[in-house]
């Protein structure tokens, strides 16, 4: 079987490996000027300081996007050197060339030249964390086998010093046979020297022959396999050795091995099968031998380059962790931090959000004043501007959340939070790192879904995305406010009444709390259900490095925040604009004769027609066609419910200007509404609760749908999410309404 379409044919790869100094072949899309330049990939373990170095080298000359087909961030930047501009690609962090996450797979595919959309790099900058030398050099050992020139950059030398360690760059350079440079990226120390070396690396000779060795039988096996790959798959000697060592290093019988074997010719596959069986019969596992051989060789390098003080000092990180990971205080601090984060997202974000809402209004009016009256003006002002405005209002919350997340990530606290929360999360198949995305979904599901990018396990990440919109977001608050204000009495559930002052819990507060609790319970319950059914499989693995605490680099934090926010604006912008226009159209057409009251216009519109068509389906929940219109228009954003109901109930114009007045006036009108056929009130407290329950559980937010579509790469999961959430909402509201009636309420 030949390699699949997405991969570069082996002969091309062979050519690339054989002559590494030549320029990259012209790509299918030659519009990007970067392709003709020298390309250097930055490679390293996660948390090795690679991104800080990348930012220090490229500054703002960066392009951030996605690798096609996956949601792995793709970062490219330009570095100006004496020899001309160089394209730097910041590859996702990886522990080895045997991928265990989508991030690692991308990095490996680029390094081996498997991806058609990214050129195989001309050289590699391997970023190595000096405070974690041994494990970082394991990857180096694999990179040196690729036959591409390598430059090793030592970072975190200051952290190493705190641990009583010092890495001798010269000794390491001599032992490895490739240039080694030490830098302190955040303070820009060592950068000029590094840039100078960097410019020369692509024209350097490939690294010297490997120094790790295997027992003779295993050595012969690698050579034999490399020979077969040259003969049957047309690989160059270097590429054939690299691939043979990687292939034999994969665990026997694993899906990774099966995937790798599909790449090569049948002869190679049959041969490897027979040989591995023969080794297994003698009790030898080649993958173990290869990993151990590399670590043995790394041990030799470390012995030459690392100076370790006899006594390892207790570091600040150790002292901090005694508090932050304390079995009691650790949780107290975590809860206080999360409460602060959550509160800040609500309060700080409301000022800029109000400003944006005001600016959108002003923009709408400005345009309205300059366009002739008519459908086009209506479309632009009420469809496009208002629709996009509804989304951009979330931007402050998104910026703040990402500011906090990059701070938590860069200081190293995120790993601690995951450590503390993992037990709770793992019960329902989630990951310790699912906690923060779920928590931020209380503010808004959009940043919550985007924050799942910190979860390495793709299964736990999908599970988190699927349940995040069930957490009660801030857009539901206006709906709760109207319904609770109008239909739930403020009687005391427990507490004391002192004159007009009520101390304690009122029924209103209890109802609001119940809605939040319902969303949370539903999210965990559905996660548990999907974990056991739909996404059944081995539980996500939780192998997480605990990096030392670090002072975050302001530059990196701010850059990360704006990059992610920009991705959101670009992403959400297109789909939301389109859907806003559709919704505007549905509630505006067909036009009624001039002079028709707005409520009648709404009733006769397509949205009104849909509401009336929907009525038989939502009648068992206690809703009529008016609520049907409310539910449909909520797809733009849930708070639009209040505006839509305001239009239907013809709440006077001046009241509609002030949201508080609107909800009070609307509440009064709703209470007075009587069903013409039965003569009973349309809204009762039971209907109000049923409606709120529906709003807690239903997926009614096109912005979230758009973001989920982007983050999961397709329509499958967002459509599934709409289906299951609507079903869940319908059944729960049905149970609440019908159960309530049986019990004699409403």
């Amino acid at each position, binding site marked *: 079987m030949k390699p699949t379409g997405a991969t570069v044919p082996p002969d091309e790869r062979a050519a690339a490996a054989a002559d590494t100094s030549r320029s990259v072949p012209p790509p299918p899309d030659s519009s990007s000027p970067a392709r003709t330049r020298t390309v250097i990939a930055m490679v390293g373990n996660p948390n090795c300081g690679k991104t800080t170095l990348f930012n220090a080298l490229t500054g703002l000359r960066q392009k951030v996007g996605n690798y096609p087909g996956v949601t792995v961030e793709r970062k490219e930047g330009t570095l100006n050197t004496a020899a001309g501009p160089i394209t730097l690609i910041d590859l996702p962090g990886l522990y080895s060339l045997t991928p265990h996450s989508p991030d690692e797979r991308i990095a490996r595919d680029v390094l081996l030249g498997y991806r058609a959309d990214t050129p195989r790099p001309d050289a590699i900058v391997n970023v190595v964390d000096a405070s974690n030398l041994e494990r970082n050099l394991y990857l180096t050992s694999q990179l040196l086998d690729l036959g591409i020139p390598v430059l090793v950059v030592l970072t975190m030398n200051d952290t190493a010093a705190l641990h009583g360690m010092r890495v001798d760059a010269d000794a390491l350079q001599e032992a490895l046979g490739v240039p080694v440079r030490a830098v302190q990226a955040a303070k820009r120390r060592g950068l000029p020297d590094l840039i100078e070396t960097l410019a020369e690396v692509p024209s350097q000779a490939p690294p010297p022959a490997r120094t790790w060795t295997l027992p003779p039988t295993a050595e012969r096996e690698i050579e034999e396999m490399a020979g077969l790959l040259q003969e049957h798959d047309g690989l160059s000697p270097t590429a054939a050795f690299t691939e043979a060592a990687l292939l034999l290093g994969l665990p026997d019988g694993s899906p990774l091995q099966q995937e790798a074997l599909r790449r090569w010719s049948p002869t190679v596959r049959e041969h490897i099968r027979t040989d591995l069986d023969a080794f297994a019969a003698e*009790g030898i*596992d080649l993958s*173990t*031998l290869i*990993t151990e051989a590399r670590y043995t060789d790394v041990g030799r390098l470390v012995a030459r380059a690392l100076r370790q003080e006899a006594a390892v000092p207790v570091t600040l990180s150790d002292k901090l962790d005694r508090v932050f*990971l304390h079995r009691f205080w650790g949780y107290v601090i975590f809860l206080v931090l999360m409460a602060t984060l959550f509160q800040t997202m609500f309060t700080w974000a409301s000022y800029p959000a109000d400003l944006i809402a005001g600016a959108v209004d002003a923009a709408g009016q400005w345009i309205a004043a300059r366009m002739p009256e008519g459908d086009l003006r209506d479309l632009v002002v009420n469809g496009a501007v208002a629709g996009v405005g509804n989304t951009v209002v979330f931007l402050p919350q998104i910026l703040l959340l990402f500011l906090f997340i990059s701070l938590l990530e860069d200081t190293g606290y995120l790993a601690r939070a995951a450590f503390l929360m993992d037990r709770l999360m793992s019960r329902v198949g989630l990951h310790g790192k699912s906690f923060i995305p779920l928590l931020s979904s209380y503010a808004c599901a959009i940043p919550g879904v985007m924050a799942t990018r910190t979860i390495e396990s793709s299964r736990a990440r999908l599970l988190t995305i699927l349940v995040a919109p069930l957490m009660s977001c801030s857009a539901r608050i206006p709906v709760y406010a109207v319904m609770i204000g109008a239909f739930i009495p403020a009687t005391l559930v427990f507490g004391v009444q002192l004159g007009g002052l009520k101390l304690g819990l009122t029924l209103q507060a209890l109802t609001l709390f119940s809605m939040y609790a319902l969303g949370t319970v539903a999210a965990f319950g559905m996660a548990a259900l999907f974990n056991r059914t739909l996404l059944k499989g081995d539980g996500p693995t939780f192998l997480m490095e605990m990096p030392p605490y670090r002072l975050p680099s302001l530059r990196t934090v701010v850059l990360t925040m704006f990059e992610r926010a920009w991705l959101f604006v670009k992403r959400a912008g297109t789909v939301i604009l389109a859907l806003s226009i559709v919704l505007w159209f549905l509630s505006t057409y067909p036009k009624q004769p001039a002079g028709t009251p707005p409520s009648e216009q709404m009733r006769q519109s397509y949205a009104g027609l849909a509401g009336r068509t929907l009525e038989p389906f939502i009648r068992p929940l206690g809703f009529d066609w008016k609520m049907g219109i409310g539910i449909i228009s909520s797809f733009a954003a849930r708070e639009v419910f209040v505006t839509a109901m305001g239009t239907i109930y013809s709440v006077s114009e001046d009241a509609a200007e002030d949201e508080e007045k609107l909800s009070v006036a609307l509440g009064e009108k709703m209470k007075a509404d009587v069903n013409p056929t039965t003569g009973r009130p349309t809204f009762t407290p039971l209907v109000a609760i049923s409606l709120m329950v529906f709003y807690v559980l239903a997926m009614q937010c096109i912005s979230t749908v758009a973001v989920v579509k982007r983050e999961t790469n397709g329509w499958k999961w967002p459509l599934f999410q709409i289906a299951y959430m609507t079903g869940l909402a319908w059944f729960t509201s049905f149970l609440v309404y019908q159960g309530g009636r049986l019990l004699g309420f409403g």
Partner: protein
Amino acid sequence: MKRSTPNTSSAADCPATAAQCTLDCLGKGQKARVCQVEGPNRCRLMELGFTSGTEVEISRRAAFGGPLEVRLRSYRLSLRCEEASSIRVETGSPEFT
């Protein structure tokens, strides 16, 4: 084509007489030496440094049976009990007692 994991040569690296257990059985502060890694995460655990003969120390255990934190090759890694139970270690060596 799925086959059981073959016996590895590293099993021979632990003396038969040494006291053996799995990593999740160790308490905070206990040290041990890796004998053998099994299970679906074997490859990744070995790449992260759990090769036979590596010295490991349990530096922390989370409350309510949560993850463990292990110190090895001068860095810290946290892993769940399930994953830790796939790592066989020996504690009998005199340097650990």
